[in-house]
């Protein structure tokens, strides 16, 4: 059965089925993914797309609980597709799938709005864990990604007025992450619960999207006259005011 409302506290114990949409251009791979996902208890792959263009069209109607997105797709990339889908389905978590562990690419996907990432070579158990984690509001972040995030926020933005700032606590969490500490170790050191650390990371993710989008808008408007903007109008409507 398909659920139309995402249950934020979905866990394996809850009887409802979590629907998964998959964007993957290789048929064989796509088939394998579907089989693996369907083999998990409580997960069902309800929608597969072989291109980003199709995904943008089909997925908003399918309203899955979680989206698995290949990063390398023909024509429109998985990163741009993520960005578009986030406009249409801001609440649906997107997990990026990648063949290679290229942290720069992953970081760009996170900037575009992805909520997690997974190497395609990960074990099925890891995939399930990642799906559950992202549905539970998790914000996975390795030290390498944390380093990139810290650097991204330190970079001067195109317009200083619109700069998003990380709070001291968030910066502290990121710093500890980049030093190699696990979420639990950070929680111990900062005398917080693991959940709080996770919520900080979640905020960092959100600020990263905002940061990235403002940057994108700034670049967009700086380079083109407003009249000739060809992108869908609603693309920038939800632009948060910094």
């Amino acid at each position, binding site marked *: 059965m398909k659920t139309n409302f995402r249950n934020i506290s979905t866990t394996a114990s809850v009887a409802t089925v979590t629907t998964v949409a998959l964007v993957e251009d290789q048929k064989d*791979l796509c088939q394998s993914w579907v089989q693996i996902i369907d083999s998990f208890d409580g997960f069902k792959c309800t929608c597969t797309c072989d291109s980003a263009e199709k995904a943008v069209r089909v997925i908003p109607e399918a309203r899955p609980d979680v989206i698995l997105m290949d990063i390398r797709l023909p024509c429109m990339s998985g990163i741009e597709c993520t960005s578009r889908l986030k406009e249409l389905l801001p609440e649906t978590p997107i997990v990026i799938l990648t*063949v290679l*562990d290229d942290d*720069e690419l992953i970081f760009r996907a996170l900037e575009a709005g992805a909520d997690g990432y997974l190497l395609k070579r990960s074990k*099925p158990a890891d995939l399930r864990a990642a799906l559950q984690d992202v549905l539970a509001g998790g914000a996975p972040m390795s030290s390498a990604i944390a380093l990139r995030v810290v650097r991204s926020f330190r970079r001067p933005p195109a317009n200083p007025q619109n700069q998003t700032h990380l709070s001291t606590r968030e910066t502290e969490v990121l710093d500890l992450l980049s030093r190699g500490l696990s979420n639990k170790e950070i929680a111990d050191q900062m005398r917080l619960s693991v959940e709080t650390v996770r919520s900080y990371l979640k905020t960092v993710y959100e600020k990263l999207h905002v940061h990235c989008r403002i940057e994108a808008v700034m670049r967009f408007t700086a380079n083109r006259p407003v009249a000739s903007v060809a992108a869908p109008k609603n693309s920038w409507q939800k632009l948060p005011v910094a």
Partner: protein
Amino acid sequence: MIKFRKSVPGRLQAPKYAGDCGGLIRVIALLVFSLISVIANSATARPERIFIGVASNNPAIYVAKPEPETTNGLGCWIWDKVTFNKQTVRLWHGFSVPKANPVVRAELRIAADNAFKVWLDGQELGSGSDWRTLSIYHLEGTLRPGAHVLAVEGFNDNDQAGLILGLRLVLADGQVLQIQSDRTWRVVPNSESDWQTVSSPAADWPTASSAANFGRVPWWNIPTSVLHIRQEMPKPISVWQSRTFQIGLLVGCAVFVLICIYLLIQLVSQSKAHHLVQAERDRIARDIHDDLGSKLTQLLLTGEVAQIESEQARGTPLAQMCDGARDILATIDEVVWIVNSRHDNLEDFVIYVCKYTQHFLQSSSIRCRFNIPQDLPASILSEFTRRNLFLATKEALNNAVKHSHATELTVDIELNGSRLHVIVADNGRGFDCVQAGQERNGLTNMKVRMAEIGGDCEVVNHSGGGCQVIFRVPLKERSFFKSLFQLRSRNHSADSSPARPKDASSPNRKLINDLPEVA
């Protein structure tokens, strides 16, 4: 113009070639003309009239009446062997001023039949066009010790020709040097250029001939007028003013420009080659990713699906195959990272090392910590440096996991001036060089790797336990020329030994050979 020669003013002297003319009328006319002119000269004796205009304008030039001593120091009348009308004769004479005894005052007396132009050390002093007027150049200033050149260009308009000259040099210690026109003067061929400054005469320059001694026929022994000219002595030519130096400088500049152009061409072709190599690297990375990576992933997933579908397949060689595929994919990850030119910078290196370390230590019980400076400079880290440094770091991590029994491992990235320090420290039992040497030769490998990229490697065992492996690499940007020449030499060595088999024991062996070491 027809000239009359007189040995003594006032006395008529028949023209030497008068008889050659043949015609009586012509002889009479000449006689009358010469008589008139001589009378006019001796009677009026007012040569001032000629120069009055010049004298009034320029105080440095004045005309005086000739005194008996005016002609002191003059040599004899000299000229080329042959004499003809409209003849130009160049006369050259070199002299030297003794060392440490510079000339403080100099007087040059000169007269020529019919005209002269005189140079000292290539600088023109002046000219004259009347054989009866003696020009005296009072040269002021100092004539430096060493070789000097006196050059005179004489012009004969008609009939007999001669040049008479005397240079009187008063030295600093009061000594007097006399240079006179005599047979030691050399006649410079008219084809010669820059002859006024030539320091030594060519062997084929003939010596001057004496036309007549001073005071002998056909010229007078006293000039009708004396022209005094005050003039600065030619300034000593500085080294950079000398022709040799200037030509040398010009040649040097030309050579420099040529070298620059050559190097620029080299650089352009090399940067082109560099771009090609980079494009090729990126293509390889892409191909590995797209083909190898995707297909292997597919294989892996098929294996996983097979395991899911069949209970029996679990824990069988199929699972091992899947794990093997995962290892290969991890290895491909590393190859792509090394090959891709996008990562040729310090930041990507640091981030990759962190990622790798975290990943590598995940399966062990060792906690990892990183100390990374807040501001990493945007330094370029070449593929070569990046790869060697990374593989050396990997070796250190491997050693720590295998032998140290540590519980915590720290990777410190430090920037010490222009050097990058990568420090892998653990709290284990220390690094046993002997044992390590026996086991895997890891330390030697690390040292050779670091030496190849101009860095070094140090292993420090702490008494309280733990061990530090320090890698130091120069980060300094290489200078333009150095990198150019290094590129060249590298290209050369690559070209000269294309068929040389790779030394398998060298750590610089083929990339792919290194990678199966991945744990």
